[in-house]
């Protein structure tokens, strides 16, 4: 930002702040270059692939399936839920710690002090909400299953989804913890009911789903949702005025720390910043039940119970992983269930890995415990392994889904997560440039190292989908399992 003589108030403070590290024209040009290349290389092909899928035979079957409105409604409720929960830790009305502190305590309305970031976040969400469903809606027009007017309705509804998501995000930052918890439960229940029973048709998310072409419920959700967003916006902005500066600055500090760790390619450390701290259950006895190595496992079990909300989320995800493992894409025979199960298993088991994270943090020469480091790691891996696979199998049994497939796919995904937790810091060798005719390829190695856990879990899901589609005998899943096993063993036995 260029210094503006005479600027005062919020603008003046921001001018002074920006002047500390002015961005050169070269920096801006590089940013434009990176964004343009990323759009051309990553976004362009991705959009084209989605378009080809959407306008293909399977795409038509999926997009015209009667379950699409309820699925969109459920997805809408989940997006709002996510925005609400994220707002507790990282709200939209945020600036870097120093300006957040100065402006938070300044004699200016919060809507002015934080209006810029709030407006940018709202615009981004509205744009994303409009664009994401627009592509499949346009595909329906191309397939002759919808009119351009239908696309307009979908885009309008999507914009409202983004608008309400912005309101939910701000609500997470502004509302007290209990109110956020109630909102999260209501939205979670709404998502489940929308899919399972097509219920709560009066709810805002269901009305938005009704904007989909061919939906049997009358449209009008966009207007209802927009009204909802406008009704809640005034109380939220009033609430923003009353949020303690300490909370805003705390969020700003955590956001900055997490971003620094992401920049250093330490995703584990970044996640650590936002990991819930135990505040309850200290009267539960974690140590003193059993002697010997089992004491570590019991301590991990009780430790997990001390962040109950987080544990509940993990349990739900793991049970769902088993429930959905046999699912197919609506209107087709595409086996999407194993992929979804792997993703849910990988994500869900993370909440019971705190003991293993503790073991991973022990230095190579640590003499803290009376056992070797590999033994301590193995003991801390027991609880997540058992609960991860056990809950997924339980979910599969309850839903009548293929139990063996659930155990295999989620088992590999859980192992990938365990390996991820034990990953440690990035080897410096990956920073060495790899000069090729196409440029420096060292970023590829770093990207693979960074994302190997999710990639291996996804690979397990895809390999499971091959089995579910009767197109393979499990060879690919065995290959992925061996690969994950080797990575896990190497990291667990590292001295």
């Amino acid at each position, binding site marked *: 930002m260029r210094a503006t003589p005479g600027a005062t108030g919020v603008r003046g403070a921001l001018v002074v702040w920006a002047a500390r590290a002015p961005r050169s024209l070269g920096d801006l040009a590089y940013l434009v270059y990176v964004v343009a290349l990323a759009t051309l290389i990553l976004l362009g092909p991705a959009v084209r692939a989605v378009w080809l899928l959407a306008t293909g035979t399977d795409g038509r079957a999926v997009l015209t399936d009667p379950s699409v409105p309820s699925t969109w409604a459920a997805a809408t409720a989940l997006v709002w839920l996510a925005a609400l929960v994220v707002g507790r830790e990282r709200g939209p009305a945020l600036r870097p710690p120093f300006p957040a502190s100065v402006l938070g305590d300044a004699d200016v309305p919060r809507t002015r002090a934080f209006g810029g970031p709030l407006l940018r976040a709202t615009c981004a969400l509205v744009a994303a909400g409009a664009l994401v469903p627009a592509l499949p809606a346009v595909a329906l027009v191309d397939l002759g299953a919808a009119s351009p007017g239908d696309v307009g309705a979908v885009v309008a509804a999507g914009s409202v989804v983004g608008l309400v998501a912005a309101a939910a995000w701000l609500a997470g930052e502004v509302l007290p913890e209990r109110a956020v918890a109630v909102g999260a439960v209501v939205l979670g229940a709404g998502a489940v009911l929308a899919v399972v029973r097509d219920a709560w048709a009066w709810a805002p998310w269901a009305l938005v789903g009704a904007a989909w072409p061919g939906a049997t419920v009358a449209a009008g959700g966009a207007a209802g949702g927009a009204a909802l967003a406008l009704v809640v916006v005034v109380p939220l902005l009033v609430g923003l005025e009353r949020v303690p500066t300490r909370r805003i600055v705390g969020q700003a500090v955590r956001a900055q720390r997490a971003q620094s760790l992401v920049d250093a390619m330490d995703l584990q450390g970044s996640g650590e910043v936002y990991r819930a*701290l*135990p*505040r309850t259950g*200290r*009267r539960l*006895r*974690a*140590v*003193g*039940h*059993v*002697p*010997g190595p089992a*004491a*570590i496992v019991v*301590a991990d079990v009780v*430790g*997990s119970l*001390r*962040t109950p909300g987080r544990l509940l989320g993990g349990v739900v995800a793991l049970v769902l992983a088993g429930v959905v493992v046999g699912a197919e894409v609506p209107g087709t025979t595409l086996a999407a269930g194993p992929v979804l199960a792997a993703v849910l298993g990988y994500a869900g088991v993370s909440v019971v890995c*705190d*003991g293993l994270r*503790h073991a991973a*943090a*022990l*230095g*190579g*020469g*640590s*003499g*803290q*415990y*009376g*056992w*070797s480091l590999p033994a301590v790691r193995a003991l801390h891996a027991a609880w997540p392994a058992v609960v991860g696979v056990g809950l997924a199998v339980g979910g599969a049994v309850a839903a009548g889904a293929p139990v063996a497939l659930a155990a295999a796919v989620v088992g590999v995904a859980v192992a990938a997560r365990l390996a991820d937790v034990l990953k440690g810091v990035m080897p410096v060798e990956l920073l060495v440039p790899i000069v090729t005719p196409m440029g420096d390829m060292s970023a590829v190695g770093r990207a693979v190292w960074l994302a190997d856990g999710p990639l291996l879990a996804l690979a397990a899901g895809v390999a499971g989908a091959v089995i579910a589609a009767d197109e393979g005998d499990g060879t690919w899943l065995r290959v992925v399992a061996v690969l994950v096993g080797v990575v896990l063993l190497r990291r667990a036995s590292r*001295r």
Partner: protein
Amino acid sequence: MAAAATLPGASVELGSAGVVLDGTTLLAPTTVAVPAGGTLVVRGPNGSGKSTLLRLVAGLRAPTEGAVRVDGHVPDPHRRAFRRLVAGSVEPPVPARDLTLAEHVALVATTWGVPVREARERAAALLARLGIEALAARFPHELSSGQAQLATLAVVLVRPASLLLLDEPEQRLDADRLATVAALLGERRAAGTTLVVATHSDALEAALGGSTLRLRAAAGAAGHGGAAAPDDVPDDDVPDDDARGADRRLDA
């Protein structure tokens, strides 16, 4: 003492042991011998090599010259027998974020073979000795920096060891707490444990007794500074060849 069961002390020997890293002297060649059950206090300004010396003894770093022996063996923290000998805060214990302080201390004790009931009793008694029994049910993130330092000492002291290596245990402690820590260390010394303690505290040095090794600030380049000088040789009397890296000897 309510903490760990006593083990016979371990001897420590540094024979012209030094560390030079990329041309920078972290520890000039140092010779010192601590008999089993002895106490060595390591003094010196920041950057003189106190922590490096402790890391050599803990086996967390290998000397680039000279040799280090603990009970006659090369330090190797990957050997179970060595881990049993040595406890310390050179590499501070990692807190378990979802265990209370008392649980963490007790869990560490159980992994060293202490029966469960006794481990819990030891943990409670040790926290009481350190004056932090009221913090027993707190999680690590609920401790202040001084309380966290005492928690670290509790985790270190609860396990049996023949050699205690402590790096500036006085950090963030008030005078009363420091006296308490010194008394606990005195009990361990009386029970036969060998102590090697790096400190900036005159009070802790006086309370621990034993011998003192004074390190001088490193000048940065290899062969200049960081020389160890025995307690009874004033720095002014250290000849020039010491400043170029020739080692000094001290029998503690």
